[in-house]
């Protein structure tokens, strides 16, 4: 009786220390996140003008939202492009990173070097470097075509034959172009997959080897072992990675540049806030739908 009464109090007393540990974050969260989030909501409904003494807010109702969705020249197009690009890239990146993690998890000579190389994009293909690289034309000229298929014979050659072959063999044309398009964008995909590979690799290493041994004794092939063991065991991480990839795809694209430019070039802070709120709501919806639909199929131990 005494023991059962005392134990929670000890735990609780210890629990008070937690507030000390999370205090810095709590402070940052309220002052630098929660308050700005609410403020930004207000801004999106009003006209904001900056003056040396402070800022002035004039309530405008839904005008900023109407402006973004119905009047702005670029907004709708950029938004749809961002979403479509994301829908196109996320499955590719996730499947690719699972595949590479599976490769890197096996025993072979030079595995260490291979891992070092495969994690390199985590470091190099982020932020400003990636954005400059895509617009550089000496490099793309040397690489043969690069981003613009009309100028380079190189990129035409790369997948044109494959495309014809696949279409002739009776596959769906849409699917074939998607597939060959992804072959052409392999660098983009590789460089977006760094963190996901790490997460999958860590997950693969956490699977108990006994499971594979037992399956092998029962006569399972590698193919069966993958779909019956690896895939279910790693499915929570597939969810994690899908979410991570979606967020990653959304943090830096034309849309975010547009939002930034509206705020700091045209100084239309209200419109920028409205744009970013629409953007955030769409991201949240996409994340909700994907999480919900994947979560039903995820196998939790």
């Amino acid at each position, binding site marked *: 009786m005494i023991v059962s009464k005392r134990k929670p109090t000890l735990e609780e007393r210890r*629990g008070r220390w937690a507030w000390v540990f999370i205090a*810095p974050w709590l402070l940052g969260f309220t002052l*630098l996140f929660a308050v700005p989030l609410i403020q930004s909501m207000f801004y999106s409904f009003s006209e904001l003008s900056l003056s040396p003494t402070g800022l002035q807010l004039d309530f405008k109702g839904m005008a900023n939202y109407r402006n973004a969705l119905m009047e702005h020249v670029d907004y709708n197009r950029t938004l749809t492009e961002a979403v479509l690009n994301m829908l196109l890239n996320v499955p590719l990146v996730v499947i690719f990173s699972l595949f590479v993690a599976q490769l890197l998890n096996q025993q072979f000579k030079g595995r260490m070097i291979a891992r070092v190389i495969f994690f390199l994009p985590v470091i190099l293909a*982020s932020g400003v470097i990636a954005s400059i690289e895509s617009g550089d034309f000496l490099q793309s000229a040397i690489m043969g075509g690069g981003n613009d298929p009309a100028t380079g014979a190189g990129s035409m050659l790369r997948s044109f034959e494959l495309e014809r072959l696949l279409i002739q063999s009776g596959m769906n044309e849409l699917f074939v172009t998607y597939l060959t398009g992804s072959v052409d964008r392999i*660098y983009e995909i590789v460089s977006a997959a760094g963190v996901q590979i790490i997460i999958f690799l860590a997950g693969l290493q956490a699977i108990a080897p006994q499971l594979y041994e037992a399956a092998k004794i029962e006569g399972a092939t590698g193919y069966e072992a993958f779909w019956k063991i690896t895939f279910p065991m790693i499915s929570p991480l597939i969810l994690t990675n899908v979410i991570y990839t979606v967020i990653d795809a959304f943090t830096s694209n034309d849309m975010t540049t547009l939002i930034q430019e509206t705020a700091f070039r045209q100084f239309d802070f209200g419109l920028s806030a409205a744009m970013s709120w629409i953007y955030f709501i769409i991201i*949240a919806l996409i994340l909700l739908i994907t999480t919900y639909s994947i979560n039903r199929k995820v196998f939790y131990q």
Partner: protein
Amino acid sequence: MSLMTGKVINSKKEGQEVQRWERFQQRYLTLEKVKSSVWTIVRAVLIIGLSYVILYPILLKVSIAFTHRVDLYDPTVMLIPRNVTLENFEYVISTMNYAKVTWHSFLLSAMTMVLTVITCSLVGYGFARFTFKGKNVLFSLVILTILVPPQTIMVPTYINYRNFDLFGLIGLFNEGGLNLIGSYWPFVISSATGMGLKAGLFIFIFRQFFKSFPKEIEEAAFVDGAGVFKTFFQIMLPNAIPAIITVMLFSFVWQWNDVYYTTMFLDNASVMSTQLQTVGATIAHRLSTTSGGGVGAVDPFYVSMLVNTSILLAILPLIVLYLFVQRHFVESVERTGIVG
């Protein structure tokens, strides 16, 4: 495998059976051998091919950086320059103000890295190893900070730092608060309070790591009379080195490459990432003023060559850093417990 055969031998002691089993095993093994050797080749091709895809742009940059201008229009020069030169490097280093910019970038990244690691490890530990009211709600708020795009709170954040005020205290002395834009203070404040670049993700990583850590060690420390902080600093932190290295590398590198926060908080191009954004224009401008023929007379290929050199110089510190920590990093991935 041997256990299984042992069982078979024990249960069915007829010699014929054993022979049949052995024959089967031999056949099975050879088939396995063929399959595995084919797979080894396929795997090697795939890994070498993908490594090539990753490394090629870097190698290309190295090659471009060492190539002399004369070789640009020589179609017989491919990848390996005929006239090796350091001219490009010299030109870019003086144009970019390389030493100063690198030092600034290093200072900024190192500072945010240290603060981020301290705060996020504390917070991660707080979420992993204590039970308190509202823990789940608060942790879902951590996840929320990952999900909300930074652009959504961009304008208030900017205004916040432009007229920085702490509970109206600074406003008492200085009307309108302090203007922190253009200094490193916004980075210090945001990373010290766990609101910096992708800090939510780092908190998540630390929490997962501390959660997977055996609870008994902590209890032993408690029994031996160690307080909460002593346990954390002397037992948990030394064991969290894999997670610390991962977070350090990520936060340093992402800060180094970041343009979103640096363009917002710093008004001049004093760090590497903002410098890189405009380096093409800077080089073109300098070329046109020195040659005197206007911007139109600038050779775009030469500019591109110099831009490539500058990117190489910008990522050089990162590559050096990565080479130093790669062993710990790659190993730590296996034990970080990002997975939980």
